């Protein structure tokens, strides 16, 4: 690991000013950054820890909406009964990351800011319709999670901007996340699919489908969602939704599996997550 200057600011404004400099990196849980610095794929001249800034940590519930601070550990998201009950897909996604030891370090803000298309919490946040609060020395703004990513490792965040919080509006009545993987733990998602639905007497009043690791960014399968809204989940509709989700996937082939396999599996996994989300609703 190369040497760097280490900063522990106590305010967001100070952190933002430091982070706006060249060759600066934010340190949240460190599970990506520290490994990257060891591999010399990351060689920051300054590392800015967010640990001492108050108010970035923890899960708070207000009425129907839940707010998750960016520095909240992934393990806390996984074990939170509010998240488990109301945003099950997100809790399930959190439980799929690395190992317990890694989830005790890794933060949800880091998992998202790293902008891996395969991040395990991202599909759950997509189907929760999460808003991402962002702060900088110039002020605050908020973007929808599906507008945050611009490419692998790339986001709309400007230099100096820091994710502070994820705000989840009123929850769907049932949701589910499936990670397609080889190993039970310590694996990256070949594909991640989340679905969230609201039902009224068996009719789907709202549906959201989030796809990870099948496009340059995490994406919503809006065509499939539109097919579902206003209808009951018949075998035929399920098939159409699966096909519509697969149609928006533009996966790559890599050493873990081929693009063709990924596309086919988006269809299969979309059907499975939808069935489970509906069963839970």
């Amino acid at each position, binding site marked *: 690991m190369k040497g760097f200057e280490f900063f522990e600011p106590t305010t967001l404004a100070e952190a933002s000013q430091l982070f706006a400099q060249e060759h600066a990196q934010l340190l949240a849980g460190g599970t990506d950054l*520290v490994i990257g610095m060891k591999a010399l794929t990351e060689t920051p001249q300054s590392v800015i820890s967010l640990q001492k800034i108050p108010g970035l940590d923890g899960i708070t519930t207000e009425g129907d909406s839940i707010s998750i601070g960016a520095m909240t550990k992934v393990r806390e998201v996984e074990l939170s009964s509010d998240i488990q009950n109301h945003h099950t897909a997100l809790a399930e996604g959190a439980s799929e990351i690395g190992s317990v030891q890694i989830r005790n370090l890794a933060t949800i803000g880091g998992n998202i800011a790293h902008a891996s298309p395969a991040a395990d919490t991202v599909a759950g946040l997509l189907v929760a319709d999460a808003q991402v609060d962002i702060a900088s020395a110039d002020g605050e703004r908020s973007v929808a999670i599906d507008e945050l990513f611009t490419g692998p490792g790339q986001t709309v965040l400007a230099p100096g901007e820091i994710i502070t919080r994820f705000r989840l509006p009123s929850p769907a009545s049932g949701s589910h996340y499936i990670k397609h993987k080889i190993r039970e733990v310590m694996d990256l998602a070949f594909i991640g699919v989340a679905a969230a639905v609201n039902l009224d007497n068996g009719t789907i009043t709202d549906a959201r489908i989030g796809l990870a690791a099948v496009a340059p960014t995490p994406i919503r399968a809006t065509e499939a969602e539109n097919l579902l809204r206003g209808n009951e989940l018949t075998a035929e509709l399920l098939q159409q939704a699966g096909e519509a989700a697969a149609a928006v996937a533009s996966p790559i082939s890599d050493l873990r599996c081929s693009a063709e396999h990924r596309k086919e599996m988006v269809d299969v996994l979309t059907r499975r997550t939808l069935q489970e989300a509906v069963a839970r609703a």
Partner: protein
Amino acid sequence: MAKHPVSLKVNGDEYDLLIEPRKTLLAVLRDTIGLTGTKEGCSTGDCGACTVIVDGKAVTSCMVLGVTVSEKEITTIEGLASDGELHPLQQAFIDTGGYQCGFCTPGFIMASKALLDENPERSEEEFRYELGGNICRCTGYTKILEAVLKAAEEVRTSA
């Protein structure tokens, strides 16, 4: 690069140190303080050999910068036995033969300890899943799991 003063609380002892920010907690424990019970395996967070407990949570110390754990309570394998008595986990690993070369053992014991402290009422399946971040290349895990379940039983009945 400037060194930073840190105050590490390891196994109840305080160490006031001046360390480089790039030093991992693992390196500080092993090289600076001299506690070599914590092992360096993969150094990328994949194997769990370097597991220690920080403020009650098991973490892979190879991914933690030493400068970020000042004032936090750190427990390593050296801190488990008290008054010459082994921790139930240590005794159970001996009794069941839950180790062969022993390199992964401190990591397994620290990961298991955090789980037991949190809640010893875990099913075998839960222990299997939650110890998934620890790798052993000798035993095939059967005896390790036996040891953890034995210790969990002991902790439950003595509680």
